[in-house]
């Protein structure tokens, strides 16, 4: 797709205004129309886009520490076939100057439909000076300073397929299915239909206030499928990690982990993000470490996150030397057991080996 065409189809609304404390770059997430069944794909992606937008927050409430997470945007890409693969999705995301893109496919079987959703997080295209998602830990050991640095767990995700029941398919596969209502309730009268582009204004529970085609009103956002999908919570958590909203990220990923119907890889990485958030918040994450090492015994990233969580605590002045030694021993033991996960000459492991006495 040509950048000009894409720019024409992009429609974005950001949350609130910037402030003096805001970060120089905003975090953007694209939601592309799902492929396959055009009207149903548009309805599904529009609902997800609005639900995701509802999770954006500029600061916590209440906000005694006067935190500011900068600006966040959810961009709507109302055109089919923008993203059919992770490679195509990366391209579309970069063109929109977005850090992530949610895309997917819809297939109608006899009456119900199957939705498969994907998240692509392209690597290193923007110029942010501080990338919260990259985890850096500065360690001082034996008069030497070492920086351990690790990327996010993965950059391509597949979510649990969603089964849309017949009633949903029948209702949302027509061009005028997403009604704009006069009030945020089921008795609100229909005053219009959400079009190809729309502007988001406000939230109220399961309703979002939008403006589309000159009409301003409320859109009902139904749950997709019989079980609550993990998609919105997970993507919201990713956005919050990128914005350095550690408490918010922990809350989002804890919702994902509490969901019984999620893929194992999404569960494992949600645990990793909780470990990261708890590390930033100086909280203990041993329960999450134990859970992720059990779920993903051959995940190199799980080992890296566990070791970094344990070592970062040694930087805090309150920690007794004996506790720090215990954490270092646990890290050495874990790395000794799992060194087969690391490629030869792995720089991360090399750095750790220059600090800790790794055994052969």
């Amino acid at each position: 797709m040509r950048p000009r065409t894409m720019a024409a189809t992009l429609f974005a609304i950001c949350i609130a205004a910037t402030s003096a404390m805001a970060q120089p770059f905003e975090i953007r997430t694209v939601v592309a129309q799902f492929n396959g069944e055009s009207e149903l794909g548009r309805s599904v992606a529009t609902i997800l886009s609005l639900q995701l937008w509802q999770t954006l927050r500029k600061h916590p409430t209440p906000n005694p520490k006067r935190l500011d997470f900068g600006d966040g945007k959810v961009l709507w890409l109302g055109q089919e076939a923008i993203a059919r693969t992770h490679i195509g999705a990366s391209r579309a995301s970069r063109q929109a100057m977005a850090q992530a893109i949610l895309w997917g496919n819809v297939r109608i079987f006899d009456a119900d439909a199957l939705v498969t959703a994907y998240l692509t997080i392209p690597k290193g295209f923007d110029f942010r000076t501080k990338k919260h998602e990259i985890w850096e830990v500065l360690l001082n050991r034996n008069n030497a300073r070492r920086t351990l640095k690790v990327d996010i767990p993965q950059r391509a995700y597949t979510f649990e397929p969603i089964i849309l029941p017949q009633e949903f398919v029948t209702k949302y596969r027509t061009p005028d299915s997403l009604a704009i209502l006069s009030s945020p309730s089921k008795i609100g009268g229909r005053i219009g239909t959400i079009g190809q582009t729309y502007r988001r204004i406000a939230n109220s529970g399961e309703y979002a206030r939008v403006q589309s085609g000159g009409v301003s009103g409320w859109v009902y956002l139904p749950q997709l499928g019989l079980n609550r999908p993990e998609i919105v919570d997970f993507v919201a958590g990713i956005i919050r990690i990128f914005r350095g909203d550690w408490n918010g990220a922990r809350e989002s990923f804890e919702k994902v982990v509490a969901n019984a119907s999620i893929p194992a890889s999404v569960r494992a990485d949600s645990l990793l993000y909780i470990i990261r958030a708890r590390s930033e918040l100086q909280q203990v994450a041993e329960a999450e470490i134990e859970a992720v090492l059990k779920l993903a015994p051959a995940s190199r990233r799980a080992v890296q996150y566990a070791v970094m969580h344990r070592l970062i605590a040694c930087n805090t002045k309150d920690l007794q030397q004996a506790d720090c030694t215990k954490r270092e021993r646990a890290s050495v033991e874990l790395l000794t057991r799992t060194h087969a996960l690391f490629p030869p000459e792995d720089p991360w492991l090399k750095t750790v080996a220059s600090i800790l006495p790794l055994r052969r």
Partner: protein
Amino acid sequence: MHHSAKATIMALAGGLSIGLTGAVSAACKSAEPPRLEVRMFKYGGVKGDSAERKFSLFHSIIIEKIRHFQQKAQFAEVDVKHLEKLTIVPGTDNIADFADAPTSFKDLQNTWEAYKNYLVLLTGKLDEVKSKQYYAFSQVYWGTLRPVSLHEEITAKLPIAADSGGKTMDSHSLLTLFTLAMDARRRECHSSTILYLLQEALYHANDLERRDKLEGDLAQVKKFIEKLIASYVS
């Protein structure tokens, strides 16, 4: 301890002040080329518009997740670059593009052995159990890449319906990933490559188990994956 794991530790030496993660090459010891083609033959019983449409849906959901994995591997920090060449043939759901399946098990064996690029061969049939309700009986042949304790062919019976879409995707992805791991072992690749593939396969096995009780061959595959991982990561 495996030789490649030992090599990793042997290679460790202090020096770098910043530990960056990044794709690191870990070549395989064997000069044998990897097997990288998932070949799907024409399934029996695909006659008429209704059956053809169902078969197209079945084919498209099978290949969607394998393609997802293939592309995901491009972001990996271990050496799985060879997966860029992983192909699923045919790549379209046009019935005319599907070759007839080998007529006997012996032919299937010969086909797999003759074409050194074949990873797994998919054959099977479609059964219309009720009006417009179809089941796919899928058979996955993995030649000498199978562990000796497992059957030469893995069979999966799956309804072609939206609510079994996840199961269909995961069962075929699990077998493809596990066979890729076995192929990496055959080529004596570094443990980091083999373990990456085994972990991905384990995720799919766990997802199948979460949806339904894992039985028969697929349960055996999961046990084998866990055993293999434990042999590297004690």
